[in-house]
C-alpha cells in the first residue's frame, strides 16, 4: 500500500467509507484538505484518534465556505459542541452531507438545522429575518423584511403555529423545482455530475484553491 495509508488504519478507512459518501481516495484527499488548513496542528497519524479540533476561523476561510453567507451556521451545525470548531470527524461529516451523493432528505434535514439559528427546532420569525438579512446583506428595509417573513410563514406554515417545523420545511423544500437540481442532472444532457472530477480538481490545484466544489447543496 502507499505511504499515505499510514494516516488511518484499514478499519478506520472502511468505517469512514460506510459512514460517508466518499471513497477511500476521497477521504484521504479530504484529510489532506483538513490538514492543509493547519499543518502544525493536525498530525499525520490518525490511527490513535488524536483529539484535534480546528477553530472556526480556519474552517470558515476555506474557499468552499468563505463566500457563503451561512458559513458560520454550517460550521456550528456540523461541529460537535455547536461552536464551529471542528474535528476531522465533523469535517468529514460536513462534506459528506454537502456532497452531491447525499440524498434530499438528509440535506433538507441539515438545511433546516442551518436555518434554525436559535436551535429551538423551529424556524421562527427571528430566524427568517436573520436569513433574509444574510441573503441580502441588509439591503432590504425593515418593512420589506417583515413582509417577506410574513409571506414565507403564510406560505409554508401548514399547522398554523406561526413558525416552521421540520415537517413544514420539508413539505415546502421538497417541492422546490431547483432544489438540488443542478446536481441531479444537467439541463441538456443526462450527465451525472461527477464527484470524481471535483476531487481530481482539488488534487490538481491545491495551491490555487478556487471554486466551491462539492457544495452542491440547496441550489439557486
Amino acid at each position, binding site marked *: 500500500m502507499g505511504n499515505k495509508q499510514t494516516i488511518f488504519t484499514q478499519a478506520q478507512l472502511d*468505517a469512514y467509507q*460506510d*459512514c460517508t*459518501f466518499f*471513497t477511500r481516495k476521497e477521504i484521504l484527499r479530504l484529510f489532506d484538505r483538513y490538514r492543509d488548513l493547519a499543518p502544525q496542528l493536525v498530525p499525520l497519524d490518525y490511527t490513535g484518534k488524536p483529539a484535534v479540533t480546528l477553530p472556526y476561523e480556519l474552517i470558515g476561510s476555506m474557499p468552499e465556505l*468563505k*463566500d457563503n*453567507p*451561512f458559513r458560520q451556521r454550517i460550521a456550528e451545525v456540523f461541529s*460537535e459542541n455547536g461552536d464551529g470548531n471542528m474535528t476531522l*470527524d465533523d469535517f*468529514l*461529516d460536513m462534506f*459528506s452531507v*454537502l456532497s452531491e451523493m447525499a440524498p434530499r*432528505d438528509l440535506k433538507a*434535514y441539515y438545511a433546516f438545522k442551518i436555518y434554525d439559528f436559535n436551535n429551538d*427546532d423551529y424556524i421562527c420569525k427571528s430566524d427568517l429575518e436573520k*436569513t433574509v438579512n444574510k*441573503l*441580502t446583506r441588509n*439591503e432590504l428595509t425593515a418593512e420589506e423584511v417583515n*413582509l*417577506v417573513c410574513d*409571506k414565507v410563514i403564510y*406560505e*409554508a406554515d*401548514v*399547522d398554523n403555529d406561526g413558525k416552521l417545523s*421540520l*415537517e413544514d420545511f*420539508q413539505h*415546502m423544500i421538497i*417541492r*422546490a*423545482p*431547483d*432544489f438540488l437540481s*443542478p446536481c441531479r*442532472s444537467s*439541463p*441538456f*444532457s443526462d*450527465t*451525472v*455530475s*461527477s*464527484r*470524481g*472530477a*471535483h476531487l*481530481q*480538481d482539488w488534487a490538481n490545484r491545491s495551491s490555487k484553491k*478556487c*471554486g*466551491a*466544489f462539492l457544495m452542491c447543496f*440547496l*441550489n*439557486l
Partner: protein
Amino acid sequence: QEKDKEEDESKEEDSCSQQNRAPRKKNYQRSDEKKAEEEGGQQRDKKAPTKEQKESENKERKTNKKEKEGENKQKQDRKNSTSASSNSSDEESLSEEELEMLMEEVEQKKKLISTMRNKPWRMVKKLSVLREAQAFVEKFEGALGKGKGKKLYAYKMMMAKKWVKFKRDFDNFKTQCIPWEMKIKEVESHFGSSVASYFIFLRWMYGVNLVLFGLIFGLVIIPEVLMGMPYGSMPRKTVPRAEQATAMDFSVLWDFEGYIKYSALFYGYYNNQRTIGWLKYRLPMAYFMVGISVFGYSLMVVIRSMARNANESTADGDDDNFIFSWKMFTSWDYLIGNPETADNKFASITTSFKESIVDEQESNKDENIHLRRFLRVLANVLIICCLCGSGYLIYFVVKRSQTFSKMQNVGWYERNEVEIVMSLLGMFCPPLFETIAALENYHPRIGLKWQLGRIFALFLGNLYTFLLALMDDVNEKLAEEDVVKNITRWTLLGHHNSSVENGSIATPPPLDPADVPRGPCWETTVGIEFVRLTVSDILVTFITILVGDFIRACFVRFVNYCWCWDLEAGFPSYAEFDISGNVLGLVFNQGMIWMGSFYAPGLVGINVLRLLTSMYFQCWAVMSSNVPHARVFKASKSNNFYMGLLLLILFLSLLPVAYTIMSLPPSFDCGPFSGKKRMYEVIQETIELDFPLFVAKIFSYVANPGLIIPAILLMVLAIYYLNAVSEAYQRANAELKKKMQMQREEEKNKRNNKASTNPMLEDLEDLLTPSTKSESQPKQAEVKKTESSNRSSPVGKQGKAAAAGGSPMSGGRGAAFAPPPHVFVTQPPTLGVRAPYLGQPRPRGFPPGLVPGRGRGRPFYPHYAS
C-alpha cells in the same frame, strides 16, 4: 400448553414464564450447547461496549442497550433459577424461530450499516453504532450460517461488496469519461449555473455533430475516397483548364474554389455510377439515405431530449404556492466560490426579493396603462422596421453579389459582402433590440423571452432572405445549364467526329477531362455558400470574443491606472457573458449545418472542429475576461425554449433541402444524382433493380396517393386523440392540485393534525424523545424466546406478524413493563386504535414531539376501557 400460551400472551410474562421456563430450557440445552456457548460468549463480549457507551442518547443505541440489558437480566434470572447447573452458564437455545429472529436482526443490522451514511447523526455516533452493528453481524453471521450455507453466505456477501465497489468505480469512470466536465464545473463555480448551461448545450451539440460526422464520413466520404474513381479521371473530378493556374492559390482556396471545390467535400465531386469498388457499394443510394438520416437522427435526438426536459419539468411541481419560501431557502447558489459571483448573487437575490414584493403589492393596481401600451406598440413597430430593413439589406446584398460574381476582378470586399453584412447585422441588431425593449418595461423574464424571439426572428429572416436569393441564383444556374448541356454535347460530338455518333455523355470521352465544358453545378455552389457562411460566422464569433471581450478586458484592466474615470466600474467595464446571444448563435449555426450538409458533406467536419475550438476558446475567454451577470439568468427555466428554437430551426432547414430534393432537377454533369430527373429517383431505381419484383410492386402501391393520404389522415387523428387525452390528464392534474390546495387550506384551519410519517421526521423525534415503539420490539423477542420451547414456529410467526401489524393486543403484550396490562386486554381490539380520535381530539397533552399515532405500544387511555 395452549392455556400456557394464552397466559403468556395476555398476562405478565416476566413473573410466570420465568418459572416454567427453567425446566423447559433444560431439554434444549444439550442439543445446542455449542452454539449457546458461542452466543453466550458473544453476549458477554457485547456487555462491555454497552456499558462504555451509556452516554449515547440516540434511539438505535438505546434500544440495543435495552435489549442487551434485558437479555442479561433474564440471563441472570435464569442463572439463579437453574443455579444447580451453573456450569453451563448459558441456557440459550437456538430453535428455528430464534434463528429466524436472529436472521431478521442481522438483516436489520446490515440494513443499518448500508444506510448509515444517510443518518443525520454525528460521526462519533455513526462510528460507534457502525462498529456495534458490524460486530453483531459478524458474530451472528458465523452462528447462523452453518456448513456450506455459511460459506455460501460469506461468498454472497463478498460478491455483494465487490459489486458495490465495482459500481462505485464504474460510476467514477463514467463521470471521468464525460468530456469537459471539469472545465464546465469551473465555469459554473465562477459564473453560476446559468452560464454553465450554455457550455453544456455546446457539449450536447458537439455530441450530436459527432454522430452526424461519423455518419457522413463513414458512409459517404470515406467510401468515395477509397473506392471511387480517382481525381482527374473525369470532368467533374477535375479542375477546369481555365482555373488550373490559380487553383492552388491561398486566396482561391480560402474561397473554397480551386482544388477544394473539386474534392469529396462537395456534392459535385461524386459520380453517378450505381456501384463503386469491389464491395459494390451503392454510393448514390448511400448519399441520399445519409442525407435523410442526418435529419432523421437530429429530429429524433432533439425531440427526445425535449420530451425528457418536459418530463423533468413536470416531475417537480410548478405550483406557485411557495414563491417567497423558495426564494428564501433555495436562492443561494452553494456552488459559488468567488467573491465577485457572491456579490452578484447577493445583489440578484435582493432584486428578486424586491421584484416579488413589488409584484405582490402591485398585483391589482395598474396605473397609466395607456402610456405603457403605446410604448410597447411603438417598440414593436420599431423592431419590425429593423427586421424589415435588415431583411431588405440582405436581399439587396445577395442580389448585388450575383452581379459581382459575373464580373471579373472583383475585390475581397465584393466577394465577401454577403457574409460581412450578415455578420454585422447579427452583431449590432441584438443590442439595438435590447435598447428598444427598454421602452416596453416588461418584467425581465418576459422581456428576455421577447428579446430571444426577436433575435430569432432577425436571424431567421436573414437566413431565409439568403435562401431566397440563393434560390434565384439556382434558378438562373438551371437556365444556364440547358445551354451548357447543348454546348457540351456538341463539343463531345465534334470531338468524336470520326467515331460512332452515339452522343451520350456516359461514354468516357478521350478528351482531356479538364477541357470538357461543364455546367455551373448549382448544388456545389449552394454547398460553397453554406461553407463560406459557416466559416465567416466562426471567424466573426471568435474575433468578436477576442476584441469585444479580451481586448476590452485588457484595456479596462491596464489603462485604468491612468484614466480620468474608473473604467472598471464606469462606462466600458468588463463584458458579461451573453448567454442568449451565444445560444442563438449556436442554434443558427446548427441550422446552416443541417441545410448545407446535403450539398457539402464536409461541412459537418468543419462544424465539429468549430465546436471543439469554441469549447476551449470560450471557456478561456469566459474565465479570463468576463464578469458574472448582474442579473442571474435562470437557464433551467428556458431549456425547452432553446430546444424548441432548435427544433424550429431544424424544421425550417429541412424545408429547403426537401424542396430541392423533390422538385429541382439535379445538375446533368456533377453529383451522384446526375442524369436523373429528380434526386429521389435513386430510391426507385434501387428498388427496381436490386429488389425482387414484388417489393417494387408493394412500393408502388404504398407510394400511391390513395394510401398516403389516409395514412396522413390517420396520423392527424392520432395526434388529435393523444392531444385530447393529454389535455384531459392535464385538467385532471389541475383539478387534483386544486384539491390539494383546498386540503392545505383546510389543514391550516384545522391546525390539529400533525400525524405525518416522514422517515426523517421520525429520526428527529427519535433524537428528541426515546421512542416506545422500538423499545417494545426486543421485549417481544424475549417473550418469543420463552415461548419457543412449546410452540411450533408458524404460530410464532403469526404472533410476530400480529406484533408487526401493531394491533392493540400484541401491543399490549409487547409492553411488558406497562403498569396495567389487564385493562388493556379486556378492551375490544378496535377501541385501542380508535381511541385517539374518539370524542375530544386531544384528551391530554402529549410530550413534545410525540405524535398521537405512534404511542401504540402503551395504553395511553386506560380510562376508556373501564
